[in-house]
């Protein structure tokens, strides 16, 4: 069980309101990702749920019970921190055992859970090492192990992968997703990386300045972003926005078109421009196009074998059914 409900939760630091009153329900077993640019209040929100910060107003329910004033340890939540927060003077085994030792679990049960967690996380060979002797990914796994053994109602992850290198991040992403499938426990995951959000989440919560911009499944957010902020934040490379005459043609203040929804050709198309930087990824190539008369730069995604050189003229055709329209306040027109 791990249903978490926030009712009119609000947080201020002194006079600064970081989270205006906010409602959110996280269902049992869901993988929810809070995503947003830095300073959007996503970490604060997580810390409110964890109990590391006091709410200024509002109620937090865990499994229907009011947990607003319950101390962090009693909420039945386990947290994995950005810095891993391992205890440097304890061995891996003692680190993982620490929450159980605090809960005064009997020794045999402690050992059983440690063995189980270590086996699941490939840590069996490292149990007697200190955190300082481990690599970043291994430390990350120890931190997760320390959370697992508590058998919590829900896991809270605070940007857990941001200190890892790119290759390791992809691997850990998969491991955490697999862990979620296996344990089927509620997980709340905070990140500023929309790729992590898209690949891992059942439900994404997009935040900006403490306000929830949209809640939905990754594909919902990708296909029907509620406003320009979500449209620009979800998807990589970012959506192109065009304002002015071209938008008026579509009866909107602004239109958005994703780089992957623009077809390119050397001659003949709706728009034309000059190729700037080309980023070759092998499978795909991203072209940055200037002098289109629409926006400063347009980004388009083309198959990897499409060849254009810097300075070439390129013709672009947006797919009509993939154009997103937004009104003057930035909201989606459907």
């Amino acid at each position, binding site marked *: 069980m791990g249903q978490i409900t926030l009712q009119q939760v609000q947080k201020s630091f002194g006079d600064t309101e970081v989270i205006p009153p906010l409602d959110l329900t996280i269902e049992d077993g869901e993988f929810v990702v809070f995503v947003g640019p830095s300073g959007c209040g996503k970490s604060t929100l997580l810390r409110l749920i964890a109990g*590391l910060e006091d709410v200024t107003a509002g109620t937090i329910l865990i499994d229907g019970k009011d947990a607003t004033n319950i101390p962090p*340890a009693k909420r039945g939540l386990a*947290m994995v921190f950005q*810095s891993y*927060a*391992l*205890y440097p003077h304890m061995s891996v085994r003692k680190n993982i055992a*620490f*929450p159980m030792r605090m809960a005064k679990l009997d020794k045999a049960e402690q050992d059983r859970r440690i063995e189980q967690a270590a086996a699941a996380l490939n840590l069996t060979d490292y149990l007697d090492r200190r955190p300082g002797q481990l690599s970043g990914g291994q430390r990350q796994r120890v931190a997760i192990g*320390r959370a697992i053994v508590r058998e919590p109602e829900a896991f809270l992850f605070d940007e857990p992968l941001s200190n890892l290198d790119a290759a390791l991040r992809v691997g850990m992403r998969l491991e955490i997703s697999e862990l979620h499938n296996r344990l089927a426990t509620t997980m709340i995951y905070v990140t500023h990386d929309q790729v992590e959000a898209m690949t891992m989440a059942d439900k994404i919560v997009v935040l900006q300045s403490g306000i929830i911009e949209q809640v939905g499944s990754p594909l919902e957010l990708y296909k029907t972003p509620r406003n320009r902020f979500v449209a620009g934040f979800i998807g990589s490379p970012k959506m192109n926005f065009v304002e002015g005459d071209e938008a008026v043609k579509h009866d909107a203040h602004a239109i958005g078109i994703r780089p992957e929804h623009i077809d390119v050709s050397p001659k003949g198309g709706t728009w034309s421009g000059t190729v700037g930087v080309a980023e070759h990824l092998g499978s795909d190539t991203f072209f940055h196009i200037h002098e289109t008369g629409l926006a400063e730069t347009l980004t388009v995604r083309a198959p990897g074998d499409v060849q254009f050189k810097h300075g070439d003229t390129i013709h672009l055709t947006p797919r009509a059914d993939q154009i997103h329209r937004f009104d003057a306040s930035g909201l989606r027109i459907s």
Partner: protein
Amino acid sequence: MATQQSRSAARLMMAPAVVLLLGWMLVPLIMTLYFSFKKYLPLRGDSLENGLQWVGFQNYIRFVSSSSFWPSVQTTLIIVGGVLVITVVLGVLLALLLDQPMWGQGVVRILVIAPFFVMPTVSGLVWKNMFMDPINGILAHTWRFFGAEPLQWLSQHSLESIVLIVSWQWLPFATLILLTAIQSLDSEQLEAAEMDGASSLKRFWFIILPHLSRAITIVILIQTIFLLSVFAEIFVTTAGAFGTKTLTYLIFQRVLESQNVGLGSAGGVYAIILANIVAIFLMRIVGKNLDA
């Protein structure tokens, strides 16, 4: 900095400093060793010009067989040990307190450091005359206020008084080092421990104290070096009476009060040996904390 040439140039340029420092250390050491094997009583007419009489290990034997020797070693160890315990325990507690956000933090921190800037002689006199005086001292007045008989601090509880004075002087040092160590603790570790169900007492025991172990080691090592040679506080308060004669003080008495340079020098050599024994023990006990 790696070529043959730059390395020899570096050696050449460091040489004057190394030679000076070595001389600084070696000359007094060798002189002490030299005098310790000589009969040197300036008031009886012995002088370097006339040549000193070689007496072998006689000075060493006399120094140890004196009835004041073992008590003085004991006193030294009690003072060092007592001050270390008090400063480390109170230092940790004070550092925890000062780490809390509070109004006027900057001023309070400066006030806490203040005792360290008071010269030992001055602080000894201040404690003797203003605090511990059995008639007019603040402590005597406090005792009388509560209807108790004032303590004869420096005559009846002399060793405790000295430990108190020296602790007061060294507490700021310990507090300061421990405070910076506490401030370097990653707050996420404490939060993680909180989430893991550790009470504040357990967080202190399992997280903060192990984190401080290295700083405590440093405090102990540095303080020991200075505490072994405590002198001024004893000189101005009890002048070595009432069982407060440390090894340092005994040597002072042998050389300056008895005018026996040879005997005092032998004592000096013992002091060096004692300091090294203490240092080795300390390194054994706490030194492993210094390995990263």
